[in-house]
């Protein structure tokens, strides 16, 4: 069963990117590794992100081509691959993935055969009621919504053990990478996906402890850490700035 996980620092960084440019749509790439163990379970770990745009630049192929070109060269040198894209829409209440984001995801899928889109849901960040604020989608001939589950403390240690066995080759010193279990959304079953040999049940998207992440995000906002986020657009306006490695946390 393929599983997707996202490291805590990546999740926080993409939220910070969106916070820095609160009035605009933000887009960025997700980088990580695909690991297949003996039982042919593949795990896709998102270990970092590269912020790209804080405008409608994502709708233009010239910008996207530039981003994918530079980031894939970068990935080669770090033995990472582009796993997917994250986005925060300028339109509120938008239920669907924007078409341009789907296209970017499909382009990524052609190259790496896995693609995840994370949409930032700012409704889930209302004061006093903060939760994990992303919706996940993965591509299996078409875009499937995948529920994001936050790991509770009970499964925490078990998840860490499983991961540390599989990620021994990973260069990341990510202590807090956690494996999350996903449950299927009932409505997806009802859509009659019998044509697809693998059922949606097979996909799980996991993220760390909700309470901890919410607290950490609030703390980073107060410390105004979002100022340190640099995206591709910032780099094009000032080439001295490095957009490929974010140094936060």
């Amino acid at each position, binding site marked *: 069963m393929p599983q997707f996980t996202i490291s805590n620092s990546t999740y926080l960084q993409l939220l910070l990117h969106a916070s820095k440019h609160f*009035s605009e749509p933000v887009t960025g790439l997700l980088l990580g590794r695909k690991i297949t163990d003996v039982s042919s379970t593949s795990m896709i770990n998102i270990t970092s992100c590269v912020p790209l745009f804080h405008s*409608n630049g994502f709708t233009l*192929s010239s910008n996207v081509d530039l981003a994918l070109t530079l980031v894939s060269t970068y990935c080669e040198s770090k033995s990472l691959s582009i796993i997917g894209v994250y986005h925060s829409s300028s*339109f509120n209440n938008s239920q669907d993935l924007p078409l341009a984001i789907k296209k970017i995801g499909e382009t990524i899928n052609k190259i790496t055969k896995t693609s995840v889109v994370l949409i930032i849901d700012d409704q889930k960040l209302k004061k006093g009621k903060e939760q994990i604020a992303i919706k996940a989608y993965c591509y299996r001939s078409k875009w499937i919504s995948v529920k994001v589950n936050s790991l509770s403390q009970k499964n925490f240690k078990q998840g860490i053990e499983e991961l540390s066995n599989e990620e021994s080759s990973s260069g990341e010193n990510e202590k807090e990478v956690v494996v999350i279990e996903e449950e299927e959304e009932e409505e997806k079953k009802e859509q009659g996906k019998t044509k697809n040999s693998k059922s949606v049940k097979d996909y799980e998207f996991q993220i760390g402890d909700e309470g901890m992440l919410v607290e950490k995000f609030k703390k980073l906002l107060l410390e105004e850490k979002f100022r340190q986020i640099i995206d591709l657009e910032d780099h094009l306006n000032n080439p001295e700035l490095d957009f*490929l490695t974010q140094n936060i946390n």
Partner: protein
Amino acid sequence: MNKNLETLQNKPNNWKAARDLLREYREKQARNSYEIIKYGLPLINKKSQKLSKEELFEVMEQVFLAGLDVNIEESKTLLLKLQKQFPKSLRVTKLSGLLEEAMGNWKSAITIYKSILKNNPSDQIARKRLVCVSKAQGDVVLTIKNLNNYLSHFQGDTETWEELLEIYLTQQCYSKALYCCEELILAEPNNYQHHYKIANIYYTIGKRTDLIKARQYYAHSIKLLKEQNLKSYYGLYLTANKLKSLYSKNLDQSETQINEQLLQFAADKIKNVYLKLEDNDTKKTVLDFFEKNK
């Protein structure tokens, strides 16, 4: 980094730096809401006597607008003060409309703006706010309709043409986006940004003739601004590269030569920009890329 901002980070109580910073932001109409609230609120609350009456109310309006982004409770308080001071002011009424918008009370906001327009039918700001409400509600069709309606009355408003351009791009209506860009170029022919934008759209449409047009517009953008225009050089490189890889059979010899020259020109210029910089991941990646793709 901004001089005033630097001063304030070391001495947060320096009211002169705060006042000057806010003046700069007002001039540039910058939306740096975090900073405006952080340094503007203490200015209003504790040092209001240091500002002239005129400036005090301008700062209050500025902090009110910033609060709509980051601290809405402060905005509510400020609006009450402004309403007390200027009870029948059109300007303050518009601010009350903005507060309703920020809180998501679309009907109240629309009522306020429509009543403004009833008495002041040529008021551009109220008209624009109505467009913003429809955009915030997610009603793309209505937003486009409202924008076109506005532009039929006020054709010279480049800010609105840019807004319409952005919406068409999100809806993938590239030919209509091109039309908006052409209006921008007509209005401001020496603005390199408009040429860069139209080049991006032609590149996105992507057929052979479009790529050639894109290449021309990137080149023109570079002609208008030779330095500090890295994005146009990248655009030129990518376009020439795409023409080379996709359409080399369809280009005759002279065209192929021109394309190759432009490709090399852009590549050299980009490399030169990075070679002057300190080492970091981005510099290494870019130089790696050009090494592999000679």
